[in-house]
């Protein structure tokens, strides 16, 4: 094997694209003004901010005024959930069991504060049944928050069907679209979305930048107090270079690259499923993000396979790393009905812009080799 480095963890974060970095560069040391300043330096910054807002809003079919910049997906989710909850004062929230921790953790906090939260289950593919949402809506329901695409298994939800229900029932609808933005169509009008969380570092933009779409007229309580930035909803000097990069990243993302990645991903899944014994594909066979693959290998543990692949230059992720972060099996895999003992050998490989066919073929052989190596020392493997 050669000395390749193959990054297959694009769901965790992405490199900053060349075009994106170029779009950011002027805002570090030349047009460095504070967007609140009245002078020319400030106006340059303000212009960059508003142009960026326009570009990103367009991608969601939203108005620029409906987009607010944050420090990332976590902040966007926190603002959406707590901002709506605090504004309403009390009530019931519907979410689902496979949400990202940046949804689940705020929900648990809101429960402690007296809100009630329903965590909907999913089927074995990780799909939320829209009729479950319908059944769960109560008179005091204030918000439905269902993530567009899952970060671990890539399953994509039917936002349009859920949006129909929330509209009918007069309930606000939020989606965490951090994984799906630019990969799956998001159209706030068609999908009847009231709030959408997105971030930059999953789409070849810089880390530390996110946004929240808030439909015009939807009232939300600010979570960061200070100056009157972002329509008084998010205080703090705007990260102009980061935001300009985020906008560029949104702009350059496109169907063509998604289709290319999808082909590579299909190849990867096919080769692993046919080339390795006792392996299972987690997530939905079709309704999944174009770049996501997630496998469970019997008889081995996630961190081990991850680290052995890492030694071969292949970077992936596991939801099952035994560390302080997760002594527990992945809540996502558990929710799809897997037993804890089946969850430990999961491996997520998420593809991206820089991956070539050669990279994927290299990764496939690496996986085959290391699964075999680990099974050789595993008590569960006696063939």
């Amino acid at each position, binding site marked *: 094997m050669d000395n390749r480095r193959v990054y297959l963890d694009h*769901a965790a*974060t992405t490199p900053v694209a060349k075009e994106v970095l170029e779009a950011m560069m002027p805002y570090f040391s030349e047009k460095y003004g504070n967007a609140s300043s009245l002078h020319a330096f400030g106006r340059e910054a303000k212009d960059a901010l508003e142009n960026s807002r326009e570009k990103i809003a367009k991608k969601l079919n939203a108005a620029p005024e409906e987009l607010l910049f944050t420090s990332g997906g976590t902040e966007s989710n926190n603002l959406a959930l707590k901002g709506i909850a605090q504004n309403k004062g009390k009530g019931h929230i519907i979410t689902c069991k496979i949400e990202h921790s940046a949804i689940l953790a705020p929900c648990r906090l809101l429960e402690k504060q007296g809100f009630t939260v329903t965590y909907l289950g999913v089927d074995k593919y990780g799909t939320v049944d829209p009729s479950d949402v319908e059944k769960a809506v109560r008179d005091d329901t204030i918000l439905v928050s269902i993530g567009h695409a899952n970060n671990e298994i890539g399953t994509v939800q039917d936002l349009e069907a859920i949006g129909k229900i929330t509209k009918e029932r007069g309930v606000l609808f939020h989606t965490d679209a951090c994984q799906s933005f630019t990969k799956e169509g998001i159209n706030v009008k068609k999908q009847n979305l009231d709030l959408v969380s997105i971030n930059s570092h999953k789409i070849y933009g810089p880390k530390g930048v996110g946004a929240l779409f808030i439909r015009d007229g939807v009232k939300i309580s600010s979570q960061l107090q200070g100056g009157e930035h972002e329509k008084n909803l998010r205080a703090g000097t705007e990260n102009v270079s980061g935001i300009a990069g985020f906008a560029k990243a949104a702009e350059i993302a496109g169907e063509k690259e998604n289709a290319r990645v999808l082909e590579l991903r299909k190849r990867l899944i096919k080769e692993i499923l046919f080339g390795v014994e006792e392996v299972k594909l987690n997530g939905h066979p079709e309704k999944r993000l174009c770049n996501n693959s997630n496998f469970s290998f019997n008889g081995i*543990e996630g961190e*081990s396979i991850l680290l052995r692949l890492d*030694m071969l230059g292949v970077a992936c992720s596991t939801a099952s790393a035994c560390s*302080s972060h997760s002594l527990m099996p992945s809540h996502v895999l558990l929710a799809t009905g897997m037993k804890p003992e089946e969850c*430990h050998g999961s491996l997520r490989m998420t593809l991206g812009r820089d991956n070539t066919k050669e990279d994927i073929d290299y990764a496939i052989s690496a996986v085959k080799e290391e699964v075999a190596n680990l099974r050789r*020392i595993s*008590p569960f493997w006696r063939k």
Partner: protein
Amino acid sequence: MYSKDVMEHFMHPRNVGEMPDADGVGEVGNPVCGDIMWIYIKVKDDRIEDIKFKTLGCAAAIATSSKVTELAKGRTLDEALDLSNKEIVESLGGLPPVKIHCSLLAVDGLKEAIHDFLAKNKRPIPDKLEKEHQKIKAEKCETGSHDHNDQ
């Protein structure tokens, strides 16, 4: 995150395998927790003449399993029982605090194998070992609700 020695033992574990004619077998861990170790010893004149293991687990579990077999091989049973987790971890150049938990598997496995050997041969089992044996058997998988840094 892992020391060079841990990675070395993880990538090239010593004494891997099974032993159909083992004198003592230790089986520890729990599939629910995601780590399992099987350890086999061959005993001659109260000395561990040969030792083999198989481990399903994280790098820390595999590396400490390997290291335990390396250190135990050739020791008397008493000496082997004296092997502490601390000693294993230190001899591997340390482990991240959150991984200490995973390293317990290996020492427990060795104890279980010795216990098994003594029991099979109807030999007296030291109080301390018996207590540890009971504790290991009773162990459940630690669970709790954590927000891992899912990405």
